[in-house]
């Protein structure tokens, strides 16, 4: 692993550690959004368990997206993004380091928290397991795709909502396969196909997204 890659990773993790509340809030957002639905929809367990895969995945999507809006914004505002662009290192590399740090800090906790919320929605045990697997395979794609949106909207006002507009449509395949995996296992079918598709999404994103993100960053810093 490259030295600069590790530096950026370490820096972002250190920053997250200094601001532990940021990490906590992603989790709480996920938690609160997924707890709002029973309040709006009513406590019927049968209904809740049938909508659980969809609701949990939508909550994960939104939590990921909202925490991503600021992925590059702070670096942009204080000028350290400029410095990163001027480092004698390929920018794609540094971008992956930042995205990976973000995933470790925001994606992984959501994955680990999800089964707990699944329980509240009366999901059976094997569906919970599939849920964790699906999130584990799918959330990297969310982070990678979201990074493109974050980079494109840097320094644009009202960028929070704009990112949503750009990124959510691109998230849809992940949502469909992710929720599909859980639903399949709820209906007693194999979730294998869905999970493979999720992994494929993440791989494709890993190949293409950092390049697009790096290009977008260069455009935004002009």
């Amino acid at each position: 692993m490259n030295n600069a890659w590790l530096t950026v990773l370490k820096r972002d993790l250190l920053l997250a550690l200094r601001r532990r509340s940021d990490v906590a809030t992603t989790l709480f957002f996920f938690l609160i959004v997924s707890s709002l639905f029973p309040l709006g929809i009513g406590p019927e367990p049968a209904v809740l368990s049938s909508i659980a895969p969809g609701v949990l995945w939508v909550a994960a999507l939104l939590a990921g997206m909202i925490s991503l809006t600021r992925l590059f914004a702070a670096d942009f505002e204080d000028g350290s993004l400029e410095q990163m662009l001027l480092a004698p290192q390929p920018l794609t590399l540094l971008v992956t380091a930042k995205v990976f740090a973000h995933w470790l800090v925001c994606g992984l906790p959501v994955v680990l928290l999800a089964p707990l919320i699944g329980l509240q929605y009366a999901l059976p045990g094997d569906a919970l397991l599939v849920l964790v697997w699906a999130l584990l395979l799918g959330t990297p794609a969310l982070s990678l795709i979201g990074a493109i949106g974050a980079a494109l909207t840097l320094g644009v006002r009202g960028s929070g909502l704009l990112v949503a507009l750009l990124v959510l449509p691109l998230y849809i395949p992940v949502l469909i396969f992710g929720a599909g995996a859980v639903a399949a296992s709820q209906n007693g079918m194999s979730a294998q196909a869905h999970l493979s598709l999720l992994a494929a999404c993440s791989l494709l994103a890993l190949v293409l997204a950092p390049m697009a993100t790096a290009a977008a960053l260069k455009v935004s810093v002009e």
Partner: protein
Amino acid sequence: MSIHWFKYSSPQTFYPLAGKMIPWFAWLATIFLVAGLYISFAIAPTDFQQGEAYRIIFVHVPAAWMSMVIYIVMAAWAALGLALNARLSAMMAQALAPTGAIFTLLALVTGSLWGKPMWGAWWVWDARLTSELILLFLYLGFIALQSSIDDPRRADRAGALLALVGVVNVPIIYFSVKWWNTLHQGSSINMGAAPKMAMTMLTGMLLMALAFWMYTIAVALMRVRCIMLERERSSDWVKALSVGVKS
């Protein structure tokens, strides 16, 4: 200010050229439209299942086709603009987007207007409908991104990147939505229910689609001229043009 603002094609020469092309495409559009409308209302027979409601097909299907084709063309222009740093290409992409969004909206609305009498519902979450809705979101994202960036050069490049990412995603979205819809409960409505299309219907649809094509080109040229005027308002050639305008 005699620097070359445009490396590959200058708006100064393209502006009048586009102006000359517009009437031609407008006339072609009108001709195809008249022919298409004649077939759709005068020649095409009544459908024995759907009654006269099926005549919506003559706007719905061409609009749906155009919505998809325009996105691809737009992304191609954007890619060209990005690769060659050619601004005219980026402007073409920008000029196509609103028209594409309008056709997408038309496909959605006319589809809904067809669905209500046929299915009894304005909307169902069918694969094709859903992917058309997502296509609308992609258009809107492109437009919103471009309009919220003030520096035209930056807007061009950011928009181009987004269009490219979108074009990679469109097939993925299309198939994922298709599988989503067929893997679980089969949709209660079968889109293939429309009868085998008679030759006349196909001709009608093709003529209307051609009319929409020509219209799209004409309108995109009009819009690209506006964009040129707005971006280059302080350049000499625009000032010279504006002298003849009464204010």
